[in-house]
């Protein structure tokens, strides 16, 4: 079985986000870029499944400009066997990402596709569900545990009401939540080795995918700021303050 993992290049989660003064977007000049944290978890899960002898090959895919090759190389250094870049300039919306992933799926026939539950730049939370719809296959989103048995996966999902378990037939799309695993660190020799692993490049056009029905992204603004309030000295002052404000 092959496992396909989607990797998006995003602003590192530790970076303090600054909206450009002209409202055209978020400042990315000289800003640290990383693999979307949920995608690292997705990849880690795929690697563990392979290491358990339940998959033969792990392929990382990214849709984006050439700079996303950096993140694909990191994925290869983590242990993926090969990488595919679907070249696309500019902002890629979830439906386009899902359509491109579907083309790669049709080429590679994976038994499992694991994506992150959410890209932490646009916070869309759509791509996995869309891919599953277009592929007409099951989806198991927000996964915190995945157990593979034969041609089925039992997946525990983090939902508002607790932990939900569903069973899906393979092939299926799984999206990774934070508690699925703790991704491994990349070691230096692996970075060297990753340089020799295959990285195929194709364009959205090659795959016959056009960005349709894109949502028009307009002005960006920083959120209304909460300002620093008052400091109190002790519990008694805190309780008094809350009572004065009618909150207790």
């Amino acid at each position, binding site marked *: 079985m092959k496992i396909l993992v989607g990797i998006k290049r995003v602003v590192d989660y530790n970076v303090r*986000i600054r909206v450009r003064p002209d409202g055209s*977007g*978020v400042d990315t000049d000289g800003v640290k870029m990383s693999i979307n944290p949920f995608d690292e978890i997705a990849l880690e899960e795929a690697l563990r499944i392979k290491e358990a002898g339940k998959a033969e090959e792990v392929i990382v895919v990214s849709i984006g400009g050439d700079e996303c090759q950096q993140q694909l190389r990191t994925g290869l250094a983590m242990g993926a066997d090969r990488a595919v870049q679907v070249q696309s300039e500019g902002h890629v919306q*979830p*439906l386009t990402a*899902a359509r491109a992933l579907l083309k790669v799926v049709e080429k590679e026939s994976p038994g499992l596709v694991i994506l992150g539950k*959410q890209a*932490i*730049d646009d*916070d*869309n939370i*759509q*791509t996995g*569900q*869309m891919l*599953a*719809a277009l592929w007409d*296959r*099951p*989806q198991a*989103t*927000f996964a915190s545990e995945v157990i593979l048995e034969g041609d089925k996966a039992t997946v525990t*999902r983090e*939902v*508002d*009401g*607790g*932990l*939900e*378990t569903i*069973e*899906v037939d393979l092939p*299926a799309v799984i999206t990774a*939540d*934070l*508690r699925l695993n703790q991704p491994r660190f990349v070691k230096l020799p692996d970075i060297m080795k990753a340089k020799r692993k295959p990285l195929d490049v194709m364009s959205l056009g090659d795959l016959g995918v056009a960005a349709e*029905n*894109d*949502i*028009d*992204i*307009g002005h*960006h*603004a*920083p*959120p209304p700021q*909460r300002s*620093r*309030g*008052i*400091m*109190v000295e*002790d519990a*008694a002052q*805190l*309780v008094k303050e*809350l009572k004065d*404000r009618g*909150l*207790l």
Partner: protein
Amino acid sequence: MSILVIAEHHGGKLNISTARTVHCATAIGGDIHVAVLGHEIDGIAGEAAGLDGVSRILAVSGAHLEKPLAANLAPEIAALAGDYSHVLGPSTTFGKDIMPRVAALLGVNQVSDIMSVEGERQFKRPTYAGNAIVDVAVPDHAKVVATARAASWSAVEGGSSADIEKRAATTQAPGHTRYVGLKAAGGERPDLQSAPKVVSGGRALGSAENFDLIFKLADRIGAGVGASRAAVDAGYVPNDMQVGQTGKIIAPELYMAFGISGAIQHVTGIKDAGTIVAVNKDAEAPIFEIADIGLVGDLFSIIPEIQSLLD
């Protein structure tokens, strides 16, 4: 213009997220219908019919619609969507799972987490963990499929009586996805997403036993209980208590954070709270930058002091 709102329900009860989503729909305007999909749903349809601003309930029943499985529900919703210009769901894990599958079946991108309505097809939504608010517009020819950000929309009132139209499901179960079960963590405490007060604990609590301090204080003031990711990861409390970018986004009148540092991913979840109280032993903790009332000190002595002051 006509809007279809997808109702969320669990255990035979309408979820409050439905009334919030209807509020968002009323801001867009037009005729608002609510689709209740499930099995044996007369009671839920009746509840939904009471929501202010709703003119009709579509009660679609089918055995395969009983559980909240996106693979089963999305095709049925997509089949209903033809008659509507907008399809709206809640931005809960239920809506986040199902609505993008509906959008893809309809060939459109989804507008996730509507914070405000600027026009029939123009909205504001948060990105980058709420650090950039973006104006988005759906192209004229495309159906609007969207989710409403729970913390931005209060629930509409009840007391109305919309018509209920019963329908049988027109789709079949794909059969490839099966519901196994739900391990519900919830107890008798107020629901985190609608509680007017929330008391929250972080890594500093140190253990599940110590987290009892938080539960006791919450019970004393009738609050819901939240936690940081670190506290959930460490196993002090279950996942459904996590507040933040990847947990719940909440807007209580009072939020009290004990031993939480205030990472952006956590703060995203509480930005809309009325009053934020932070207790942390580190005067430099970032949580103080956004707290309305801050107290530097050890939570292990401060919480018992608060308790005794209240008794």
